[in-house]
Structures are given as structure tokens and as C-alpha cells.
């Protein structure tokens, strides 16, 4: 019984990280219908930027993270404004090919500069600290922090979209990008801003991911798939849905790992396909 609870708890904590991976993608797809196949690679890219800041520039972690977030915000704006705005439209092919190309470029540039070896971030032991619960269950502090960050991000996004002028502008631009200009909203700038926020989420995810495991340049595609699965399982158009989707995926993978290390990720994929077959609209679909 305690192993069942352990699977659930560890699954939730793992899933929180997946949900954070997915938040940025949920936002971007919701606002501009963009499928970013380089999403996972952007996470990995920001991980390596963090490495550069901490190892090469010797900036302490507590200062490097805010700096990373600032860099991410600017980079996201630039990437969307210059490259992706040209391909954000109803036809999925151009955005898919361009982001696919970006994915290849990012992976190989990173490999060229940093070699293919996995690296991890030094956190001074934080990553191994945990709270001990009865029944031999240990809840890591880092995963708990991840859960807290993910919940905060979800709340933040929900508030942004539901109760602020910018959020209204986001929703309106995704509904009708021609007419929204009549209200003074520039679709180009709005999309770029959405991507900047997504990149901030990616930066947070990258930081927590790097503190948890060793990262190598080719990790991107796997992260993309987890993010994507979390969005679909949860239901498109809802941030809480994405949160739940990530949790569900985490639990499925954790259950799989329990049976055999080789089947963990496989079970996650299978859960995704099963849900897609049985309930394609996801767990918490947005109505209309």
C-alpha cells in the first residue's frame, strides 16, 4: 500500500515538472496556434545558458536565475518577432518545418560547443534534501519546490488570461487577429509577448530540470513529447488542464518505472494514446 502511495506522490512531483514544461507550450498554442517542435530544445538551450552563467561567468545561482529569466524574455520576443511571426498562421507546415530546423540547429550547436556529455548544475546538495514521511516515503525538497513553482505559474497564467487587459488581448488575438487591430492591439507584438512569457516559463523549467538531472544537448525531443502529452491529456485551452495532464503523465511514468525501468516512459506514451482514443478532448477541456 505504501508503495502505491509512494508511486502517486512521486508521480505527482515528477508530473509537476512535466506540467511546467508544458505550460509554455499550452500558452503558445492557445494564443497563436503555433506548434513549436523546438520547445524541448529551447528548454535544453536555456539549461546550457544557465551553465554558462554559473560555470564560465561564475555568477552565483541566486543571481544567475533572474538573469536567465531576463535573457529568456528578450530571446523569446526576438525569436517570435523575427522568425516565427512569419510562419504563425493556419497552415501548420511552415511553423513545423521552421521549428524542426531550429531544433536540429540548437541540438548540434550545443553539441559543437559543449560536447554530447550530460552535465548537471551544482546546487550545493539541495537536490538531495528531502522530507521523510512515515512508511519510508521521502519527498525531495527540489520536487516540492518544482510543484510550488508549477502551481504558482498555473495560477499566474490563469489570472493573466482571465483578469488582465493583456490576457484579454491574448484571447482576442487568437480569436480574430485581423479585427483585434481595430482596438489598438498589434498581433505581431502580442505574439512576441506571448512567446516571451512562454520563454520565462521555459527558463523556470530549465532551472529546475538542471538541478534535478544531468542534461545533454540531445534531450530536447523527449521533453517536447512530455510537454505535448501533458497538454493533450489535460485538454487544450486550459492551464489547469495542462497542470492535471502533467500530473497524470508523471503518475503513469512513475507506475511504469516501478514495474521495470525500461517501461516507464513507454507507459506514459501508452496512457497518452489510450486517453486520445477514449477521450480526445482531454481531462479538462475548455468549452467553446
Amino acid at each position, binding site marked *: 500500500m505504501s508503495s502505491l502511495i509512494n508511486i502517486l506522490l512521486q508521480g505527482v512531483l515528477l508530473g509537476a515538472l512535466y506540467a511546467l514544461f508544458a505550460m509554455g507550450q499550452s500558452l503558445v498554442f492557445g494564443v497563436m496556434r503555433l506548434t513549436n517542435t523546438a520547445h524541448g530544445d529551447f528548454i535544453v538551450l536555456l539549461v546550457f545558458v544557465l551553465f554558462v552563467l554559473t560555470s564560465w561567468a561564475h555568477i552565483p545561482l541566486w543571481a544567475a536565475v533572474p538573469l536567465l529569466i531576463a535573457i529568456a524574455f528578450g530571446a523569446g520576443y526576438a525569436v517570435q518577432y523575427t522568425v516565427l511571426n512569419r510562419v504563425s498562421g493556419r497552415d*501548420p507546415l511552415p511553423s*513545423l*518545418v521552421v521549428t524542426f*530546423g531550429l531544433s*536540429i540547429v540548437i541540438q*548540434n550547436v550545443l553539441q559543437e560547443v559543449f560536447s554530447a556529455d550530460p552535465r548537471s548544475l551544482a546546487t550545493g546538495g539541495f537536490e538531495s534534501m528531502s522530507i521523510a514521511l512515515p512508511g519510508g516515503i521521502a519527498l525531495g525538497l527540489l520536487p516540492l519546490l518544482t510543484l510550488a513553482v508549477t502551481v504558482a505559474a498555473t495560477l499566474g497564467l490563469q489570472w493573466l488570461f482571465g483578469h488582465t487587459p493583456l490576457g484579454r488581448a491574448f484571447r482576442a488575438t487568437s480569436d480574430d487577429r485581423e479585427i483585434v*487591430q481595430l482596438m489598438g492591439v498589434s*498581433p505581431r507584438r502580442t505574439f512576441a509577448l506571448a512567446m516571451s512569457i512562454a520563454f520565462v516559463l521555459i527558463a523556470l523549467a530549465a532551472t529546475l530540470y538542471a538541478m534535478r538531472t544531468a542534461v545533454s544537448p540531445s534531450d530536447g525531443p523527449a521533453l517536447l513529447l512530455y510537454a505535448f502529452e501533458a497538454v*493533450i491529456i489535460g485538454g487544450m485551452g486550459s492551464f489547469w488542464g495542462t497542470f492535471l495532464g502533467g500530473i497524470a503523465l508523471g503518475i503513469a511514468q512513475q507506475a511504469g518505472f516501478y514495474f521495470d525501468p525500461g517501461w516507464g516512459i513507454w507507459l506514459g506514451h501508452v496512457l497518452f494514446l489510450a486517453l486520445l482514443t477514449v477521450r480526445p478532448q482531454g481531462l479538462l477541456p475548455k468549452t467553446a
Partner: protein
Amino acid sequence: MNVMNVSKRRFEIRRATRASRVAVFVLLIVAALVASFPYWAGRDTLRDFTQIAAYLVFAMMWNLLAGYGGLVSIGQQVYFGIGGYAMLVLANYGGVSPFVAVPIAGAIAVLIAVPVSLVAFRLEGGYFAIGTWVIAEVVRLTVANVSWLGGGSGTSLTALQDVPRSLRESLTLWLALAIVAASIGLLYGFLRSKRGLALTAMRDNAVAANSQGVDVKRARLGVYLVSAGGAALAGGLYFVGNLRISPDAAFSVNWTAFAIFIVMIGGLGTLEGPIIGTLIFFLLNKFLSDFGTWYLIGLGTLAIVVTMFFPQGLWGYVSRRFGLQLFPVGRRVVFLDTGPSVSPAPKESADSADPLHAAP
């Protein structure tokens, strides 16, 4: 403005262009040349052609799916791998000759594609693309965990062990040629037909096509199945030539990546696009792949640039500029007398402004 009464001019509806007639002639000569390779060409040439054939057929199938079916998939490699593994199982354990096993593997892939499509078609657009990738990953992980298929490190095609090497290589080459010829021929015939026209309509505007009586769902399924079968042929062929298979090689997303690059260079939705794209890609591959990561960086950058600035592909751009069409699937009106041509008035003023591309 003096408007010519068009209906009074004599005209004809033609299919072929002069360039296309030349192209068909050239292709027949090339095919005959390739068929004669085993008698005089070196081993490397034979291997190269088999590889080119696999890339080409896979790219043509991806082009069919995306360019004509309107379905962009990053997971077609699943059928490439299924083709390879099915061929291997039939040959190693079923006693079937690998050369016969390849077409059978194609049929098996089509059968598998039916239930897969039920799941995959739940998604649309960009998410359909990634969903197909997930499916490919599931199959890859499953196969990697099956030990009698060799598990993660793969296994070898033993059925051809007793065949003398030169015979094996000749047969492989002729199989490759046959598959390429059949694929091109069938696709060309299909696209010229009524159903092919329906596909083009569907790609351009599914709702409008539907209202004209095109059964969009069935057409999409048909394209998906054909594409799966063709991909499996390519996969079976590749591993007959390679003699060794592993899940990572068979189900790698790189196959689709290469197909995308080929089609982007060559131009989406044309028949000659993948052919030209494959040749260029193969040449690049041969001479530059030693540069490893830089080669891939270049390829990725090329794909980005071409998509952004030449959405019709490099060949598409050339063919439009110079009016070249090697495999014309449409019909043109050709006026038999030479009359004055009316050109549109030069644009000087208000223009429809796309909110994303307008001047800030």
C-alpha cells in the same frame, strides 16, 4: 482598354509540356542505365543507389501525405521501421525470400496503419504531427524491449547469408529500381486521375472540397494508407541493403527530418520535387556529412531559410520562374494563334495588409 473576345480564339487543352516530354525520355534512359549497373558499376555505386532509392521513396510518401493529403506527420518513420522489421521477421523466421518479403511488409504496414489512423486522426494540424511522433516512439520502445527481435541493439538479416555477394547486390539494386519506378509511376497515374484532383482540392480547401462531393475523410485515410505502405517498402528495401537493423536506426525521427529537408528543397506537392530534392540532399550528404554537426546545422538552417523565403521550395521557385514542369499533373490552355497578351496593371496603392507582415 481593348478586351479581346477570348471565346473566339482557337485553343487546346494540353497536359504535357515540352520539358516534361524531355524529362520522361531522360528518366527512361536513366532507368535503363541503372538497371545495367550490376554489370559494370562498383559496389559503392550499387549501395548508393539503394540508399538513394530508400530516401526518395520515403520522401515521396511524406510528400504525398503532406503536400497532397494536407497531413503533416513527424511519425511516418514508424512504417519505415515496421517495413524493415516485418521484412526481417518474414525472411529470417518465415523462410520467405527478403526480396519478396519487402512488398509483403508493405501490405502489413497498410494493415497496421488502419487502426493507427483511428487514433492519430483524433488530432489535427501541428498536434497531429507530434502525435504521430509519439506513436513512432511507442513502437520504437516496444520493439527495443522485445529480445527475440534483438532488443535495443538490433539484429541481422541472416536469410541472405548463403547468397553470393554480387548476386545479392544485383538483386537488391533491381528491387530498388523496381520500387522507385513503381512508386513514381503509380503516384503520377494517381495524381492525374480524378481522385488525384480531389486530393488537390482537399488540400487547398477541405470544406469547399467536401461541399463539392469529395469525401475528405476517406481521401485522407486513403492517402495515409498509401503513404504507410510506401514508407514500409522504403524501409524494407533499406534494410535488405543494410543487412542489419536496430530500433534506433529503423524508427529514428531523422528519416522524417531528411524527408522534410528533401521536400522543402525540392518543393512540396510536386512530383519532381522529391526527385530533385533527394539528389541534392544525397550529394550534400556524401560530400559534407564528414563535417558531422556542422553539416546538420547547415541543413537545419537551410530548411528554416527555404521555408521562410521560398515556401514553394527551391525547385518550386525555379519552376515557377521559368515555367518548367517535369511531371505536369494539371492541364493548361494553349492558344493556337498568337494574340496580344493582357498584363495586369502595375500595383501602386492600397494592398491587403496581412497583420503579421505589414510594415510596423
